[in-house]
């Protein structure tokens, strides 16, 4: 079993349509560590030692967040700035995260077709996640295919929330039990509920 650390970040938790339910589902998954970053650090004063200890104690790091202005909510950026220290996460002797995996779980308000060179967002969604991907690379972590919900604001009206949450649960359990093959990200791949690979039996 892989040790799973889930970082959840949503500054408007109360107004969340999808993320709140995804978080509730994640909390019901046994054997994983769930951290609500905005609850733990409402005043942004991140405890570097505690966070580094957490990273050391886990094999897979999941970041679940809504895409805000083509990036993460600000607290995740603060977390990166402080926790991923030189000599710990990267640089000379910075090998603490080597071989661990990073899994992004993102909701985006735009529809899937918008995230393409000919869509109104002009780029694939992965383009906007490149900073995190490169962060993983510099920290010698494996970057897994992000799990995405498009058109998230419309999802409740279109009854897409429950299936997406169920898929999320399957993803977390699969990661925990190491029952996925080939989740390593290439090019502009993302996975949605429809493209979530089947679990393999051991």
């Amino acid at each position, binding site marked *: 079993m892989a040790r799973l650390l889930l970082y959840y970040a949503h500054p408007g938790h109360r107004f969340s349509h999808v993320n709140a339910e995804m978080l509730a589902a994640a909390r019901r998954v046994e054997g994983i560590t769930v951290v609500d970053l905005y*609850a733990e650090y409402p005043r942004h004063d991140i405890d570097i030692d505690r966070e580094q200890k957490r990273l050391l104690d886990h094999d897979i790091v999941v970041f679940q967040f809504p895409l805000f202005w083509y990036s993460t909510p600000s607290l995740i950026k603060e977390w990166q700035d402080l926790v991923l220290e030189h000599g710990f996460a990267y640089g000379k002797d910075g090998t603490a995260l080597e071989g661990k995996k990073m899994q992004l779980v993102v909701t985006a308000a735009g529809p899937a077709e918008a995230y393409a060179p000919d869509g109104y967002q002009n780029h694939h969604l992965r383009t906007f996640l490149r900073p995190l991907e490169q962060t993983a690379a510099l920290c010698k972590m494996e970057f897994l295919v992000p799990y995405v919900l498009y058109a998230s604001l419309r999802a409740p009206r279109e009854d897409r929330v429950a299936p997406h949450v169920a898929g999320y649960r399957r993803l977390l359990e699969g990661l925990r039990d190491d029952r996925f093959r080939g989740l390593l990200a290439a090019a502009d791949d993302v996975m949605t509920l429809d493209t979530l690979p089947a679990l393999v039996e051991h």
Partner: protein
Amino acid sequence: MDGFLLLAFIFLVAGVAAVPIASRLGLGSVLGYLIAGIAISPLLAALHVDVISLQHFAEFGVVMMLFLVGLELEPRMLWAMKAKLLGLGGLQVGLTALAVMGVALMLGQPWTIALAIGLIFALSSTAIVLQTLGEKGLLKSDGGQSSFQVLLFQDIAVIPMLALIPLLAIPELMDAAGHAADAAHGAGEDAHGPAAPGFVDALEGWQRALVTVAAIAAVIVGGSYLTRPVFRFIAMAKLRELFTATALLIVIAIALLMTFVGLSPALGTFLAGVVLANSEYRHELESDIDPFKGLLLGLFFMTVGAGIDFGLLFGNILGILALTLGLIALKTAILLGLAYLFRIEGADRWLFALGLAQAGEFGFVLLSFSVANEVLPPALADQLLLVVALSMLLTPVLFIAYERLAVPRYTGEAEREADEIDEEGEVIIAGHGRWGGIVNRMLRSAGYKTVVVDYNSAHLEMIRAFGFKAFYGDASRPDLLHAAGIEKAKMLVVAIDEKDQITEIVRYVVQHYPHVHVIARAKDRNHVYELYAAGCRDIIRELFDSGVRAGRSAFEALGLHPFEADRMARGFVRQDQHAIAELARLYDPETPIHRNSAYVERAKELMEEQEAAMRGSAGAFGGRVERGWVPPVGREGEAEEERARSGS
């Protein structure tokens, strides 16, 4: 009229000349007044002034003082000190009376006289002690509080003493009835101690008790329910002096009522003060009564000085001096023992023991009362009167001894009352209690140089134990700020407890040292306005932040997400600071708030704004909190919604 003006002139000149000199020499105002009194005594004798009846008039200052003390003391605080009041006070009076009685017996006095002397000498001088403690800012110290409790108990104890003393009458003295009637006027007219009651004498015991209880109830009920409408009524006339007149009226009315039913007027007004301690007119009353109290007490001290019969004194100077010093030594010893028993420690123990070692103005009252009741022979009473006066005269000297000898011993450095400040820091911190202590610790830990000024020796000991530089002294005194290096300081943090003193310091420093950044501790909202009016622009409410944090904890406990709770709390702070800053600009220290219509109007608007915010309408902190994270609502179509914010 001319005689009155001349008399007033003599006393005023003496006071105005002597007190500043005495203060300058560090002797305190009380000794100044006493010396002034001694200086003018030949003049008064030449003019045939009745110093004794003048003294009885001036004793009304003590009544006013206890009223003011009561105003500072909320009922809860009084209740909290009941054990010490009775234990400490009772033991002091009881033990001292017994010890003095023992000495008198050894000196060959009959037991009745010995007991009377014991009772008389057990009492201390409320006037001198409270005045001096207040002047030196020591009332709030442990020793000051204990002294106050003992004095309060003594005030109460005078009542049973007045009942007891007539029972000690000696038949042989009855012959001297003529003389006694002469002396009796003192007790009868006296305003301070309980006078021989007139009307109530005719009543049965139970009726008397009923009348007494009714009088106390009248003071409490009247104080609680009548003062507000009365003051509102007075305020309609918009005349400043009417407030003063009303305040005086209240004090005098209560004194009269208490005298009427045979209780101590001082006690009655003290009670009224306690009742009014929570009233919004408290400061009004305080500032109105205070000058009268000051003048009357000054007059009282001068009459004590003037009343010393130097002929008699020099006739038996060694004997009387020995008696006086013996009395002081005896009382000090008993007080030291009690201080040990009640765990009054350090310099406070000496403050308590030396401060209360004199006999008091009650002594004058009881002496003339005893003579009138044929308890004491007049010749002996005259000698005892000298002992009382002399011991009061020596009290300021004992206070000086406390400051010069006891305080340095416990603060660890043999320096004067106010230390020579040899270190100048960038930041001066006035007051090192819980509040100023935090500021000092933060600045020190960040490597800034601070100079701490505090008059609480316990605080100082603590600071010095941690190796900080700290100096003893009253931070509200300009010369001490000067000594602390205010000219070269970048910043002054005013962290003392006393509201008016904070304002005072702020006003002084803002005016004289505009380059100094002043951070001031505000006790409440109104104090914020006062400080703003005094020129301070960095005002921190002492309890605001902890209150906000408690509110935030409550939000979290009620299930709000911690980040939302934090944003709500920050929104509340912004809103409240905005409101208080706006109201501070409308506040006018000269106009009471309820008459400041611009202020009231705006305050109402702001209150409505805040309520609207609480109910969820936009405009204030609630709206601002939510604005950031509400997902866009698709009124203008989906594309708009998706572009505005790209998450859920």
